């Protein structure tokens, strides 16, 4: 009896202790919006639900069209050469040919453009998660000196000088003059339509056993098992939306601090957001700096336990022990079974300048 009492006493003593030890100090992390419905996880791989729509920016057909025009319009940049689509190109799986992205005046960024497709499901935007929403994200590149190199004031003046844009903004938002927030809302509305829902995996997940080949099924099993891909690439969007240090930076003179620069939390040092695996075969090279040329290269990278020994490397980075055959199966799954067939997304062509509002 005494032992039971002692055991209970120890248990009771430790519960508040553990709770105290586990409580994190409040950190300046961007708030998680309602787009973070999948935040607590992991959850099972599956088909994508409809993207979350913020109540203050409802989708309308006119707004989506306006956003699409703005997305492809190079006039948002300082010298009329860079649009959103320059780096987030539909022809490149809504990313860039890389390895990192080229901005205004031929300047090279330090990271490659993350895919715009399915970004509606990201709890936080950018590789370092510094934006809590697509609306907030859309404003960033316009005034980034090595991306579009503009200012919001100049961009608004430019757009406001285009009569057809003025008319369209008035129709969509019912107010004038045009604001930066309206531009961002329109672009975000368009980006929420870039949702890839019809990959062979999706058909398989819906019950079509023939949607995947034998080797792709093996690849899926490895993805969700021995390959441990889904411990970060989980859920319908194949991404946890969280931040991980893969050990890619320790060989650099001045490492990119990644998420740490936003949160100042040492645990986030050199950590970057998990990208979606949907359509991954369409957008080589890979990782946030484009270090790995092919999907197979990335898998080999993970198979050996990640990159350079980094004291802050994610504890989930462990050698996988995949054989060459298993790697081939995983490549087959990622390059083919994850590639969307949605015509409304896959066939999006840039709007020619001659067809943009004048």
């Amino acid at each position, binding site marked *: 009896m005494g032992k039971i009492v002692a055991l209970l006493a120890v248990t009771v003593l430790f519960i508040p202790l553990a709770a105290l*030890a*586990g409580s994190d100090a409040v950190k300046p992390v961007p708030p998680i919006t309602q787009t973070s419905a999948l935040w607590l996880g992991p959850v*099972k791989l599956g088909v994508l639900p409809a993207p979350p729509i913020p109540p203050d920016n409802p989708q309308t057909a006119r707004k989506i069209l306006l956003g699409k025009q703005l997305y492809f319009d190079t006039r948002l940049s300082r010298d009329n050469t860079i649009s959103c689509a320059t780096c987030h190109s539909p022809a490149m799986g809504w990313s860039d040919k890389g390895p990192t992205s080229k901005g205004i005046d031929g300047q090279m960024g330090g990271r490659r453009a993350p895919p715009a497709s399915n970004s509606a499901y990201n709890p936080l935007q950018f590789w370092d998660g510094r934006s809590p929403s697509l609306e907030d994200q859309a404003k960033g590149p316009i005034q980034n000196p090595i991306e579009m190199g503009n200012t919001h004031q100049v961009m608004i003046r430019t757009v406001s000088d285009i009569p057809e844009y003025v008319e369209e903004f008035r129709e969509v938002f019912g107010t004038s003059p045009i604001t930066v927030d309206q531009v961002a809302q329109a672009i975000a509305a368009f980006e929420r339509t870039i949702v890839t829902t019809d990959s062979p995996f999706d058909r398989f997940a819906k019950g079509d056993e023939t949607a995947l080949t034998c080797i792709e099924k093996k690849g*899926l099993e490895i993805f969700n098992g021995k390959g441990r891909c889904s411990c970060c690439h989980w859920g319908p969007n194949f991404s946890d939306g969280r931040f991980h240090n893969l050990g890619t930076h320790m060989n650099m003179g001045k490492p990119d601090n990644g998420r740490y620069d936003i949160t100042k939390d040492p645990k986030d040092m050199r950590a970057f957001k998990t990208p979606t695996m949907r359509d991954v075969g369409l957008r080589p090279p890979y990782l946030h700096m484009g270090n790995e040329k092919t999907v197979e290269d990335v898998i080999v990278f993970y198979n050996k336990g990640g990159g350079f020994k980094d004291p802050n490397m*994610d504890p989930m980075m*462990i050698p996988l*022990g995949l054989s060459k055959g298993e790697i081939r199966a995983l490549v087959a799954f990622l390059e083919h079974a994850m590639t969307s067939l949605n015509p409304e997304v896959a066939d999006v062509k840039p709007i020619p300048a001659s067809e943009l509002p004048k």
Partner: protein
Amino acid sequence: MKKIFTLLLVLVALPLVIPAPGQAIPAFARKYGFNCMMCHTAYPKLNDWGQRYRDNGYQLPGQTGKEKTMFDSHTPIALRTSVGFNGYNASPLTTGSFDLMGLDLLAAGVMHKNVSVLLIYTPRIDEPSADAAGAEPLQLGALESANIAFSNIIRNALNVRVGRFEPAYHLFSSKRSFYLNAPYEIYEYRPNGTFAFGDNQTGIEATGHFRMGFKYALGIVNGTGATAENDKSKDVYLALSQTIGPGDGQSAGQRVGAFAYYGNQPYAIPVWNATADTIMRLAWSDRSKPLYRYGASGSFNWKTLNLTAMYMRGLDDKAGNFLEKSAKDCEFQGAFVELDYGGLWNNRLIASVLYNWVEPPSYGAKMIPDGYSVPGMINAYSTLVRYYLGDWNAVNVALHAEYTYRTHEHKSNKELALFKESYYSMLVDFGF
């Protein structure tokens, strides 16, 4: 005198015919939608990721606090059982029966950030088999594990587990071994029929794991074979390990470790029939005497090959020595070496070979009275093949074939008898 021989034989052989309860917790896989091989080389053996998950209090490594608790997710209950044919041969005796070879009910999960629980109950199974009569239950009802763990009290450096648990000095878990018959002889060897190294313990354990690959475990426990009535003191242990290279030494990296256990245990002592000069029965001594266990281990990985080895020495106080004229402590030693291979895709095929060796306390012929017999050297050679069925969601059914050839000596002051036996199993192993 034959009673002594029989008693000793039963004590040594009993663990071998009682299947080792296995641990694999499909409730976790269901919670996350992961395939079993995420955490297991192939269930029930943990890989490095699974080991880190376990070390982190059933929370994803590096993701503490970002997952659902057991109250928000699926009912965290799982079941594991094996059904099939078991054969035994010790010439001229040959038997075989279709058995339910153990049943585990498991419940585990995170109650709150950094607070997790594990409960494993093995219900009593009275019917030993469908086609063989027998009086003994196949499995005794037991609460194998019931513990609460407080993780990351001081980051990774201090985690505390309280209750009944599998101690971390088991650098190789017999409960998560591919082998269904108790695989590691030295874990089960108990010269005086009391303390079993392989058993779960009740107490409190502190563990820590560090990025440099170092781990420690320090515990205070009741000790096995003791009861609340006769146990007068606690046992303590310390286990240290170091992994070289990335990984935890389970499926990647190279790990070496050492452990030491000091206990004070009551002993099973013979109650003599003075008239007939025979032992009537065993009884618990009310005296506690010291015992020691210490050893070293290694786990080495290359691709999907995992070579594990462990050596252990033990010393039990002479108070428990059955040979009343003996003045020697019971010193013994043993080891095992196991080589596991994972093949096909997602490690659907597992093949393994295992060698066990135990050298019991050495008694010179003069120490053994006339008519007495004591156990001698044990050698056992085992092999198995498992093939897993399933799909991308789960591979939680395994076709299992296992064979063991075992010899053990019996020494008297006149001769050395060698007893040979073999047993095999062809089963289906379910985890749901």
